[in-house]
């Protein structure tokens, strides 16, 4: 019996001896190298080899000499051989051009020209080697004094002053100087180290300009901003030497802030410092110090202190993608602003879909040579049953919700209606006329069979179906009944499409906006398509009789934002639900009057802050709020996504009126656009048949041929034909028929024989054409028989 161990039985074999994997091992030696964890040679071996070498060198020096020479020659030969073979190989290799550095500098006619990612510019520098103690000057004043459109570089260097120099320059008070004089040299040094020394401060400012002449005022601006006598202009060579010293043209080994980062930092500086300096100012307008060339310029900023105009400001793509709200002002003023934005967007190659309820805004279509305008109910029909490519599972529930505005009630329990909508949408090429509730077995005997039978369905569904009837046969028919005149895919392909949604009836208008939003939300993400909703009625949820709109409007806006860039224009921001407002990140506010609007606006414009501390309290800046109320026309407050503060902007609204398009011009443009759509066919007929028939292409063809000859044929006969035709489809007879019917290749009907109704099928025009084309390609085959 084996001895019992505390840690269990002893293993039957030594695991170290059975290491199967190469490269692994276990050693009891402690001579393991720390860096690579390898076991080094033992010291005895090293000592032995060294001894042998020394002895051999002493007794046989020739051997060592010859050996050394051999090694050296070998190294030379190998190096040369490898070098030549490497150069030969490198000739054959594919060479890649190495980009020159983004930043470079050179001397041009006595000025320093700097090249960076934004192009070429000239630089001039001022240095202040020994600044006075009052260098603390107003940084804001410095920045405003400078033309920083091309950037500005300011560096402050600090160097500890030797105590001897301090004493020599009489910078200490007399008492302290006499005290230090009494101390030994080491004691003075210790005093300075322990109690603090003085620092020698230097400033280097580099200004930029497009031309050398732009820098003429740089020196005076610097001197004015920081009134120091010691300012010296750095010579061009000296500046080049400084650039060379920091190797700006050899790839940066350390981080240098570009002008934009610096300016942003500077802009934020005051507000961040505000609590610390004890001003406790809730918020302030902040004027940017530089313009951004990548923006869609809206105008120029206004200096809140001096009311002088500053650099140009505008919107970035990211602002639109995060959602932009343009609110306040009058309809015409908002229209002018939107016109500017659309113009800028078109210039940058974006496409715009502009939906408005304002008839006056239709002439915006003239901004683009390919712009079109469509009026709902006149030359635009929005077919609610056409999902425009959106997934049915998402579209139908949304469609059901849109009907709520017509019903004035919650339709969540309208299961029958949802099923009816689902069936109609699944039909393809259907309209509101195809929406019927459930099994209408009694319809054929009613005088008018198109009136849906409404017995046996929930009350909510019945109310919903009445809304559908309103869209089909009632006042909404002109706008919503029929095939969609212009599919969304077409409207979003043109550079500028203006849709006028003005039906004159508030519920219908709201429904139209809802439907349009649902359709737009169903489109695939496209960052180059900007959707602009001007005064969308469906987003106004304040004081509505049917109050269940808050969540819906928020959801709608969120899905729209997910699709791509969006701009919402609204006169009263308070009309929107707080949730919907939260979806948008950027705001441009024109003049607001209503207290409710102001309350909402100061919130999203960041004009209120909450102070720190336990007793935090929201405070508003009366000055800015008042400004919002009394802004002149053409002035707006803007806050961009991601920033905390808003800026006043003087909008550049061009006065030139656009020539509205004539009716003929518009018809011509529409015809071009819509014709292009009809010509476009994503699938060839063959691919359609393959797609429809799946693996039963030949069988599908045979069924079509059968119906071509014997139409209409009863369902039983068609099924029998498929079964007797054999093939794997015999297991899925109904599947073949359904697929052909869904694809519109065969049409279901019915016939009566001796009072009994039979379902029958006939080939459609589409099926006939497909069959002919297929037979033209493949040759006609008879199905046999008579």
């Amino acid at each position, binding site marked *: 019996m084996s001895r019992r161990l505390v840690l269990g039985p002893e293993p039957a074999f030594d695991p170290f001896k059975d290491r199967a994997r190469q490269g692994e091992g276990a050693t009891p030696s402690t001579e393991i190298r720390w860096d690579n964890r390898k076991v080094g040679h033992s010291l005895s071996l090293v000592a032995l080899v060294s001894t042998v070498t020394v002895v051999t060198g002493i007794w046989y020096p020739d051997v060592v000499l010859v050996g050394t020479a051999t090694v050296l020659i070998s190294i030379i030969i190998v190096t040369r051989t490898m070098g030549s073979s490497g150069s030969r190989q490198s000739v054959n290799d594919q060479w890649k051009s190495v980009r020159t550095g983004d930043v470079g500098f050179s001397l041009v006619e006595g000025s320093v020209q700097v090249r960076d990612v934004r192009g070429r510019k000239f630089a001039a520098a001022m240095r202040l080697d020994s600044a006075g103690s009052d260098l603390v000057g107003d940084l804001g004043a410095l920045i405003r004094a400078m033309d920083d459109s091309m950037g500005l570089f300011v560096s402050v260097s600090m160097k500890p002053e030797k105590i001897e120099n301090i004493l020599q320059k009489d910078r200490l008070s007399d008492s302290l100087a006499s005290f230090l004089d009494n101390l030994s040299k080491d004691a003075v040094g210790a005093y300075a180290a322990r109690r603090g020394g003085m620092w020698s401060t230097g400033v280097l400012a580099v200004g930029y300009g497009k031309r050398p002449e732009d820098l003429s005022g740089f020196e005076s601006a610097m001197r004015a901003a920081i009134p120091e006598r010691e300012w010296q202009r750095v010579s061009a060579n000296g500046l080049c030497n400084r650039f060379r010293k920091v190797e700006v043209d050899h790839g940066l080994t350390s981080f240098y802030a570009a002008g934009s980062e610096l300016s942003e930092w500077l802009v934020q500086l005051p507000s961040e410092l505000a609590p610390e300096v004890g001003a406790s100012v809730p918020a302030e307008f902040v004027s940017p110090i530089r313009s951004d060339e990548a923006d869609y310029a809206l105008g120029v900023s206004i200096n809140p202190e001096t009311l002088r105009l500053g650099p140009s400001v505008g919107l970035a793509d990211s602002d639109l993608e995060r959602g932009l709200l343009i609110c306040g002002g009058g309809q015409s003023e908002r229209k002018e602003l939107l016109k500017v934005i659309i113009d800028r967007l078109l210039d940058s190659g974006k496409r715009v879909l502009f939906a408005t309820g304002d008839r006056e805004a239709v002439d915006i279509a003239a901004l683009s040579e390919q712009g079109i305008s469509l009026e709902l109910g006149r030359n635009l*029909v929005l077919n609610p049953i056409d999902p425009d490519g959106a997934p049915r599972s998402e579209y139908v529930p949304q469609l059901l919700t849109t009907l709520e505005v017509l019903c004035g009630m919650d339709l969540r329990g309208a299961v029958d209606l949802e099923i009816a909508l689902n*069936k109609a949408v699944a039909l393809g*090429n259907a*309209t509101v*006329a*195809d929406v*019927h509730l*459930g*099994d*209408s*077995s*009694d*319809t*054929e*005997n009613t*005088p*008018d*069979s*198109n009136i849906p039978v409404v017995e046996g369905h929930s009350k909510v569904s019945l109310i919903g179906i009445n809304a559908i009837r309103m869209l*089909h*046969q*009632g006042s909404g*028919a*002109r706008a919503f*009944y*029929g*095939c969609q005149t212009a599919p969304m895919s077409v409207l979003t392909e043109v550079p500028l499409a203006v849709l006028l949604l003005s039906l004159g009836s508030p519920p219908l208008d709201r429904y139209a906006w809802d439907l349009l939003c649902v359709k737009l939300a169903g489109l695939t993400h496209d960052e180059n398509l900007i959707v602009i909703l001007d005064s969308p009625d469906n987003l106004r949820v304040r004081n509505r009789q049917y109050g269940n709109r808050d969540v819906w409007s928020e959801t709608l806006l969120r899905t729209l934002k997910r699709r791509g860039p969006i701009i919402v224009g609204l006169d009263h921001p308070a009309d929107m639900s707080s949730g919907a407002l939260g979806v948008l990140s950027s705001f441009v506010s024109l003049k607001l009057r209503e207290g409710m609007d102001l309350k909402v606006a100061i919130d999203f414009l960041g004009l209120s802050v909450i102070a720190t501390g336990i007793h935090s309290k929201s405070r508003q800046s009366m000055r800015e709020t008042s400004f919002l109320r009394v802004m002149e026309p053409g002035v707006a407050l803007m806050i961009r996504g991601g920033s905390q503060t808003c800026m006043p902007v003087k909008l550049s609204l061009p006065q030139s009126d656009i020539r509205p398009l004539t009716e003929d011009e518009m018809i011509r443009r529409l015809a071009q656009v819509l014709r292009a759509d009809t010509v476009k066919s994503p699938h060839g007929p063959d691919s359609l048949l393959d797609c429809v028939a799946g693996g039963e292409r030949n069988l599908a063809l045979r069924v079509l041929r*059968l119906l071509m*000859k*014997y*139409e209409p*044929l*009863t369902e*039983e*006969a068609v099924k*029998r*034909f498929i079964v*007797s*035709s054999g093939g794997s489809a015999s297991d899925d007879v109904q599947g073949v028929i359904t697929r052909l019917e869904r694809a*519109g290749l065969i*049409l*279901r*009907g*019915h*016939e009566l*024989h*001796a*009072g*009994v*109704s*039979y*379902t029958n099928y*006939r080939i*459609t*025009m*589409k099926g006939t054409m497909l069959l002919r084309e297929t037979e033209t390609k493949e040759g006609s085959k008879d*199905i*046999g*028989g*008579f």
Partner: protein
Amino acid sequence: MLDSIGVTPRGVQKSAIDKGLLDGKSIMVCSPTGSGKTLVGEMALLRSVIAGKKGLYLVPLRALGLQVWNGLRERYESHGIRVGLSTGDYQNEGNELSDRDIIVTTYERADSLLRHGAPWLLDVGTVVIDEIQNLGEVRRGARLESAIIRLKRLIHDLQLIALSATVGTPLDLSEWLQCELIESDERPVPLHCKVLSTSNKDKTVRELVLTTIQSNGQAIVFQRTRREAEVECFRLAADVGRQLTEGEKARLDSELGSVENWGVSLPPELRTVLHDGTAFHHAGLGPNARGLVEHLFQTGRVRVVCATTTLAAGMDLPARTVVVTNVKTPKEHGQLLSANRLHQMLGRAGRPNHDKVGFGVVLTGSEGEAEEAEKRYFDQVEESGKVLLVPRYDRVRSVLNTPSSMTELLLVALDEQGETSLEEVEDSLLNDSYLIHCAMQDAESPMRLLNLGEISAEAAIERHALPESVRAAKQGSFGAVDIREKGDNVVGAIVTDWDGSQYACRFSSRTSFSGCLEGPQCSCGRSLDAHGMLCSHLLLLGASAATELGAIADYVIPLSLSESSPAGILLKLGLVEGGTAGKLKPTRLGRLINRLYLSIPTAREMLALLPQTEDKTSLLWLLRHLVGIESGGSLGESYDQLIDAITSNRAPISELAKRSGFHEGDINGLIETTTWLLRSIHAVGRLGGLLPVVTIAENMIQALDLARGHGPTGSDNGGYEHNESA
């Protein structure tokens, strides 16, 4: 001869004689049930026989034909008059009837004989058409009208006797038939009608029936379906049985057990209720059982019969009280019975020489339904302070204009006339039709009455609109059209009326969830009026779409209006082909189909599937499918099993039918239809060179003939090959 059978002409019979019945004048008699119409027909037939010609007696039902045949044989065979009966066997030329003086036949068989061109038809002097109001029934009416037209064209001095108890505005019909009209409201027993609304129909029926029986009367209760009739019978049996005396029950039992009735096969449940003086009567009963029930009722043994409509169509079985429990049609629960059908049922009320007055009661489920029924079926006449309900009959309208009837008629015309143009068919055959006759007198007839050739959207619209409306629509006088849908199966638009109001209109060839064609729809709510005329909005849309959309409109609009091209259908099926100078002529297949008396849908299904039919199983399936189309109703696999058993076993058909769950009354018609279709398949298969199916069909025909006791007929094809070669 009439004297010898104890008949003295009276009432309408005397009037008919006065109008020249015995001089060969055509007569139309419209008089209530029991007024002696049948005798007018018999007198005309006898006149024809005496004049050395033959007489044809056309009836709507096989059962009625059997009844008439029995009556005629009973009365006149002893006078040397040979009476023949022919129903079914449409594939047969009918040569065996050539030695008969009077031939009783159904409308369809008469049409079939005409298509075969039976030579003895030229010897016919008088044709009696019983229940002429059936001219307005879909399919059957068209075939009857077609047969009448061709009979009149075939036989120059033909005497037509049309009989009906229930026909509205008979003058139109008599003018078309060129008959002297004899109208009479005199009933041998006055009829009092009443429409009752009740929430408990069973209780009301019970009360009505028991009241009648307690006053020594008899009652007939009409139900919609066979099952309902049986259930009602079981429900009433106990109550009725209690009203009978022991003596009456004993007499009834002795009658049931008498030697004459030993051979009658009665369903056990019927035998049970018969003991209580109650019976049910429907087409599912065998002829012997039906005969026994009728006999027991006529002799007063049975006091109550619960029946379906089979009892109403011309059967001479009166009772004091007739109760119609439902005014909906048997096939469609939502559709009202035609007025003629209802009054045919109510007309059974009042037994001559037994009752002083007959009571016809219509039961409805609600006041609203009662009001609707009163308006639909009766005129209200005030007489001595009381409001009486007087039957109002429907005007008989031609049904020839339906696409299927017109297609069939075109094939018939081409077969008869050979190579012909469509215009010639219209001029020769259709101009003599009741359809044209009515249209000429009717101000509400559409712009285009006939359309045998290609059907376009314009033509389809013209067939559903008055001429002036079409003209106004084409000129745009009705308003403006904004087309909103133009799909493969829908054309829709918003029509703005002249007063600015807008309507959503649509022609849809889709089917609704219930499987019905959506057809024309308009938000004005009057898309199609009672005469099938489109509203002005749809008319405007149709006219506009026809010019703007072209092929799409030509496809969708005719389909949505259920219009099709008769010539196109026949050409597509290969039944006719192009001849010289744009004329059409029938193909061999077309002639064959016509003479086999196959309807176009039946022929279409047969032709489509016959090439795929290669074994007995698939042939049985095809037979079942075709029998279903021809006779209505859906047959299950039990049909296949039955036919397979009949053609494989030697067991009697009745026994096999019972095993398969078929009613005895249905089995004969089913076997007859099966045989006819099997012979048709055999003939068509032989023409198409489909040998496997021909062999199988031949064996099955022989087996069926053997089972029916007809003996093997070999490859008897009814002689149509001879005709074809001719």
